[in-house]
């Protein structure tokens, strides 16, 4: 258990891992509050799962980029600490399950040897930054967005402004107007753009704000048609600061940025962001793209002679799974990974293959697949044969038959009915009865086990969502059928209509009814969405309504896909966010911790960080006292206003000027040495004042 301690080279990472180990120990000894511990472990990628006593670990892989060495490392870690399965998520992470909590620090230390982090993979933080998997190789892209995704990831990792926000924060980068990174469903979505001014071509982004799926989807608003690349990071920073201060904290279901943007309105929100400009240490942040512009290098290899047995199958595979790159003579190969699950022996063989014959890099895709980049034309037959041996050469990459599904009731606490089970069955229906859909890249089918939409079912052309239905005293597993969503491009998209709820065992029939109807009535020149719009929602509702009848269910209808026993509804509480911490002592203790962090950052000349820690300390301290007097709060801004009203205006607490003036120095002052020093002193003296007040109050009880 101790062996990993000496092996970590980066002192910041070492500190993180040792802290996790220490907090696990304190938690086991009952010395820290369970909820508090939960939010700490979540911010380090350690999640609960449906099975008691074990953890799901989410490995954060910015824009899905993985080298051969990293894939080997992840495979080793999965074998050692998990069960050898790797699950690719729709946000380009890898999840492994059934990990013992005690071993998570050691696991993390192992991953760090190849620069892989768990930090802020879950919890109320900036989650993995996603990007189009074709970034850097796409024939249509104006430029490679990878360095921007990478810089954004690095800038906000461990940044004090976004460690304990009201809710999680997701960002995506699309390389082209096809918007494959789905910007309209992200808190912040970026689409690469070039703008030519006075003959100079500038790189920048179209920016979308406040989108999201979940049970109440919201289409993001365009806030900039063109934001220049050097203000990308300062813009994100301003938005995160406002989200941290004004974001809802007590009502978890209303805490995502989309609700704040909806409540305030886009203009008012952006006005608040613009008022943060003084607090930013860097008004301009230039992003270094050089590391991503190096020549592509290959190992020197003899290209083996390959015989293709079945030329037709090979051609079909090339047609559906091979993508031409913008680099002359190079190709990318898509691997259709069934449900995003693959296993370590194959992962290692793939890693070796990619190292020897490609350019040592794969990208995990947003549709839970793998894209190998930089394959020379003459090596395509070799890859076909080798991938076939691994079962990785099935045709239909990114096709209708390439169904996206979250893990659902297999491992997730929140799942209502099986998503993977129905996905397997539907893929079979497509392969056996509708093989032409292996070639269809227009219609996407996506499935989530519950309304939280990790499988993105409510933006798919055809979506299914896990549900349950009551039939007398019994519960049957069910699916909601949704139609009509999709990416329209350039930041626009559609959410699907919820059509009808059917017993889950009728899922295949629902798909058959739909596809048969399309085949019969869709006109040649019509897209799927045009056809859907022409017929209208009611038409499809009527088409499927017959399947919703529950008066004629058979015993088998009460058993979910992939199960042999009757369905039992078992839904836990989500923990992707830590619960609001309302313990006075915990809050005060944390305020002290923030002051220590502020001092440390100050000593390192990290003034902006120091200031933010002081700010958080001020807010936490005020909150502790408000809670002690039963004043409820739901945002940081609310805490500041309430504290002024209840304690300062009433002269219970004596400070110079108002509490607002004290706290909001943060947005009026530049992050200088002098201000950081003063603000730290302010935070300390405020803490001391409150601590004294509190001790007095408690001693009177």
């Amino acid at each position, binding site marked *: 258990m101790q062996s990993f301690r000496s092996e970590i080279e980066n002192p910041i990472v070492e500190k993180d891992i040792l802290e996790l180990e220490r907090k696990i120990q304190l938690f086991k000894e009952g010395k820290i509050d369970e909820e508090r511990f939960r939010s700490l472990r979540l911010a380090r990628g350690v999640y609960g799962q449906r099975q008691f006593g074990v953890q799901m670990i989410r490995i954060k892989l910015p824009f899905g980029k993985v080298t051969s060495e990293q894939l080997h490392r992840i495979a080793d870690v999965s074998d050692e600490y998990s069960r050898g399965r790797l699950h690719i998520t729709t946000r380009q992470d890898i999840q492994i399950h059934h990990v013992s909590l005690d071993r998570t620090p050691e696991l993390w230390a192992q991953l760090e040897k190849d620069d892989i982090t768990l930090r802020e993979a879950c919890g109320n933080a900036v989650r993995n930054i996603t990007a189009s998997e074709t970034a850097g190789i796409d024939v249509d892209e104006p430029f490679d967005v990878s360095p921007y995704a990478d810089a954004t990831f690095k800038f906000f990792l461990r940044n004090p402004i976004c460690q304990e926000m009201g809710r999680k924060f997701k960002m995506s980068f699309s390389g082209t107007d096809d918007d494959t990174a789905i910007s309209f469903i992200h808190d912040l979505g970026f689409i690469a753009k070039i703008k030519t001014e006075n003959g100079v071509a500038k790189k920048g982004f179209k920016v979308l704000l406040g989108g999201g799926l979940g049970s109440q989807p919201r289409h993001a608003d365009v806030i900039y048609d063109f934001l220049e690349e050097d203000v990308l990071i300062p813009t994100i920073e301003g938005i995160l600061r406002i989200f941290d201060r004004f974001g809802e904290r007590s*009502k978890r*279901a209303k805490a995502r940025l989309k609700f704040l943007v909806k409540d305030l309105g886009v203009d008012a929100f952006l006005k608040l962001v613009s008022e943060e400009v003084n607090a930013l240490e860097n008004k301009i942040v230039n992003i270094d793209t050089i590391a991503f512009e190096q020549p592509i290098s290959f190992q020197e290899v003899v290209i083996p002679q390959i015989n293709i047995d079945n030329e037709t199958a090979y051609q079909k595979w090339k047609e559906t799974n091979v993508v031409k790159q913008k680099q002359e003579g190079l190709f990318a190969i898509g691997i259709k990974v069934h449900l995003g699950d693959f296993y370590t022996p194959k992962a290692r063989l793939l890693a070796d293959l990619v190292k020897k014959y490609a350019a040592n890099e794969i990208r995990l895709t947003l549709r839970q697949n793998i894209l190998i980049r930089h394959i020379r034309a003459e090596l395509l037959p070799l890859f076909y044969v080798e991938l076939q041996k691994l079962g990785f050469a099935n045709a239909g990459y990114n096709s209708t038959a390439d169904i996206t599904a979250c893990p659902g009731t297999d491992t997730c606490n929140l799942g*209502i009915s099986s998503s993977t089970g129905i996905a397997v069955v539907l893929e079979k229906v497509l392969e056996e009865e509708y093989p032409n859909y292996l070639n269809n890249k227009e219609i996407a089918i996506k499935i989530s086990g*519950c*309304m939280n939409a990790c499988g993105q079912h409510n933006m798919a052309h055809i979506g299914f969502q896990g549900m*349950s239905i*009551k039939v007398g005293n019994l519960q049957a597993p069910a699916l*909601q059928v949704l139609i009509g969503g999709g990416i329209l491009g350039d930041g626009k998209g559609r959410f699907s209509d*919820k059509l009808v709820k059917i017993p889950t065992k009728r899922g295949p029939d629902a798909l058959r009814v739909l596809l048969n109807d399309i085949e019969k009535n869709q006109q040649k020149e019509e897209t799927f969405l045009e056809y859907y719009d022409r017929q209208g929602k009611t038409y499809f509702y009527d088409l499927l309504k017959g399947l919703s009848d529950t008066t004629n269910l058979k015993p088998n209808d009460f058993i979910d896909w992939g199960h042999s026993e009757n369905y039992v509804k078992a*839904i836990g509480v989500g923990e992707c966010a830590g619960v609001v911490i309302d313990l006075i002592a915990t809050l005060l203790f944390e305020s002290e911790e923030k002051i220590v962090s502020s001092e440390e950052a100050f000593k390192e000349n990290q003034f902006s960080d120091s200031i933010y820690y002081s700010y958080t300390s001020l807010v936490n301290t005020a909150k502790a006292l408000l809670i002690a007097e039963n004043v409820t709060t739901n945002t940081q801004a609310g805490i500041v206003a309430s504290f002024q009203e209840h304690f300062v205006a009433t002269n219970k607490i004596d400070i110079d000027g108002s509490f607002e003036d004290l706290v909001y120095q943060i947005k009026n002052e530049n992050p200088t040495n002098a201000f950081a020093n003063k603000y730290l002193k302010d935070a300390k003296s405020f803490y001391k004042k409150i601590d004294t007040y509190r001790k007095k109050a408690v001693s009177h009880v």
Partner: protein
Amino acid sequence: MAIIITDECINCGACEPECPNTAIYEGAVNWKYNEGTLLKGNIKLLNGIAVDAEKNQEPVSDEYYFIVADKCTECKGFHEEPQCAAVCPVDCCVPDDAHIETEEELLAKQKFLHN
């Protein structure tokens, strides 16, 4: 009948935006008669009770999403079936035995709210 949300509710919020009458609220949230309706000022409800349509009313439930029976028309006048029940992932929006109304009464309520 109005629809009621039972304690099986998982607080997912899927029902809330579906309600054509803005009769559904998150647990512990104050609500008003005028929200999502054309009611204004001092009004007399169909049952004769006088209320201020613009005044905050106490939440019906502190723990789960709830439906204000006075604002629920079971989607009569809007949809073929109650939309909350149609989208509820755990089937916990059910007819409320304490508020049994005929189709005429529900349509009259719909008129009262929106005319």
